[in-house]
């Protein structure tokens, strides 16, 4: 059968892998769940955040220093983990942690899976400000592969945007030979004094192969 991939979100401890403690992860329902990048939005909200709440909790551009968006939260549509909670903080996002995001493959792949970022599901452009406004190397979406090691304190990560600026999820070691859990840490870094405030959505995409 074709290899399938699920995304696991660590909501307990960014130092603990899915392999060791699957219960620390929520498997995203990719049709209904989504990630929220925010400065102050609350963990464990008991309702889906409204646009007004999202705007009020937005990160603020700093005139002199680059700002890493403070929080990433899973919006859990089913709200059935640990109580009736719609938001769960992604533990370890942007920190020196290996296991905030787990890419769970149920079988071998034919090449190395990779993470990409695009304006839309058409996978054709990267013109949004968050993706570098047409210059992928300037993308604010940063990622580091943590499948084999910690990202390091103050990790910079690779700018992710388009077909060339991607993140290999097996640390460049090629295809996975059997069912495997791969890991990455992600963050959004807004450049100092960025001139265009915006509320933007973009698409994270995983590209992989099977035989």
């Amino acid at each position, binding site marked *: 059968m074709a290899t399938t991939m699920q995304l696991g979100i660590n909501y307990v401890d960014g130092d603990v892998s899915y392999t060791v403690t699957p219960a620390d992860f929520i498997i995203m329902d990719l049709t209904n769940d*989504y990630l929220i990048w925010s400065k102050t939005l609350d963990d464990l909200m008991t309702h889906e955040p409204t646009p007004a709440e999202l705007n009020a909790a937005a990160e603020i551009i700093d005139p002199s220093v680059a700002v890493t968006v403070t929080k990433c939260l899973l919006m859990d549509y089913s709200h059935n983990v640990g109580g009736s909670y719609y938001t769960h903080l992604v533990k370890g996002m942007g920190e020196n942690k290996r296991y905030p995001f787990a890419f769970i493959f149920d079988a071998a792949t034919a090449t190395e899976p990779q993470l990409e970022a695009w304006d839309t599901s058409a996978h054709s452009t990267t013109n949004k400000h968050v993706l570098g406004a047409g210059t992928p190397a300037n993308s604010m979406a940063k990622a580091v592969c943590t499948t084999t090691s910690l990202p390091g304190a103050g990790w910079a990560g690779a700018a992710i945007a388009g077909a060339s600026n991607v993140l290999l999820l097996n640390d460049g070691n090629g295809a996975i030979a059997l069912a495997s859990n791969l890991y990455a840490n992600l963050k959004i870094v807004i450049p100092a004094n960025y001139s265009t405030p915006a509320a933007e959505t973009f698409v994270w995409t995983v590209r992989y192969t099977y035989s």
Partner: protein
Amino acid sequence: MNKPLFQVIFEDNTTFLGGDYECTKWSEIPLKKIRTLFYLLPTGDYIGLGGYQRFYHMIEVTKDLNGDKAGIKNLEFDYIIGQKKDCTIIYQIDLKTGCINISTIKNDDKFLTKLNPEFWR
């Protein structure tokens, strides 16, 4: 009835039929010398490939983690890679347009070292 994704004819004149995009049966191909590989194109025709020492096959998919098509597996490309003694030919089949892009690389190309060796036939 859907057409099989591929048909293999071995040097001993036996054959093997492939499955579909979801269950290709590629890894079930017996480990013996392939004489000719017929592979299904999006047009419904088959491309016939022969004269190779061995073949590799893969289907490239994308899955969006968010957005309007989140969670849907999109078939992007099919690849048939045929290796000869002195070079390797890559047939990249665009599953949306049907276009085939053919490229040649050396047998010691780094790309080949990153493939899953289990899928060579």
